[in-house]
């Protein structure tokens, strides 16, 4: 077994049910034999950096899994046929992985999730008081005074010349 990371981009026009259907199908392919899914992460709709099949948005799905290479080739064959998948990429992370390794990797993802949730909570707590203390809009200094003084100086200069 090897450990892989796969990202595939689905068409943005798909409904939520169709998305889950595609994900379940690919998971079923990857789980044949000894294969196991380590983590599935739906990134959701994202703007693409360039057009793919005339679409400017795409539904990203990230999948971390430990499977045999044969399963990966089968998955990619299905991706090429399936119209819902616009693009995919599989990266080999580790040459060998056993069931213990998969368990450990799952634990890492769980830990990362917990850490991320904690970080978010902290960020929200920090933001809350800042929003409460919004500075009042600055009062603009009255400009009328300057104009008036200018007018006065002109008047005085006129008087001087007339004299």
């Amino acid at each position, binding site marked *: 077994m090897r450990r892989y990371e796969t990202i595939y*981009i689905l068409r943005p026009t798909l409904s939520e049910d169709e998305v889950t259907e595609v994900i379940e199908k690919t998971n079923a392919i990857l789980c044949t034999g000894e294969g196991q899914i380590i983590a599935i992460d739906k990134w959701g709709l994202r703007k693409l*950096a360039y057009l793919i099949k005339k679409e400017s948005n795409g539904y990203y799905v*990230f999948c971390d899994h430990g499977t045999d290479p044969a399963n990966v080739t089968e998955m990619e064959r299905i991706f090429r046929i399936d119209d819902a998948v616009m*693009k995919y*990429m599989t990266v080999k992370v580790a040459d060998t992985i056993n069931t213990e390794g998969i368990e450990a990797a799952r634990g890492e993802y769980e830990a990362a999730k917990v850490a991320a949730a904690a970080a978010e909570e902290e960020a929200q707590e920090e933001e809350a008081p800042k929003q409460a203390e919004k500075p009042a809009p600055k009062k603009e200094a009255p400009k009328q005074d300057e104009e008036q003084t200018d007018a006065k100086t002109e008047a005085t200069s006129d008087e001087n010349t007339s004299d």
Partner: protein
Amino acid sequence: MRPKKRVFQRKRVCRFCTDPETVLDYKEVKVLRNFVTERGKIIPRRIFGTCASHQRQVCEAIKRARHIALLPYSGNTPR
């Protein structure tokens, strides 16, 4: 007399060697954005001063990100 060419000798240290905690990953687009120009080109080593092995990792990550449309092959990349 031609003016002597001034050679700027600035000691550049690879920023990844100094900070071993940074992990180069093709999924971290925000990090990779710093290593491409506004046109989407990979910034060369002679400008950034990264060491050979880390520059290779940067290139690999950027190319993977391009393949999966996280970064453009060419064109505007807003920072």
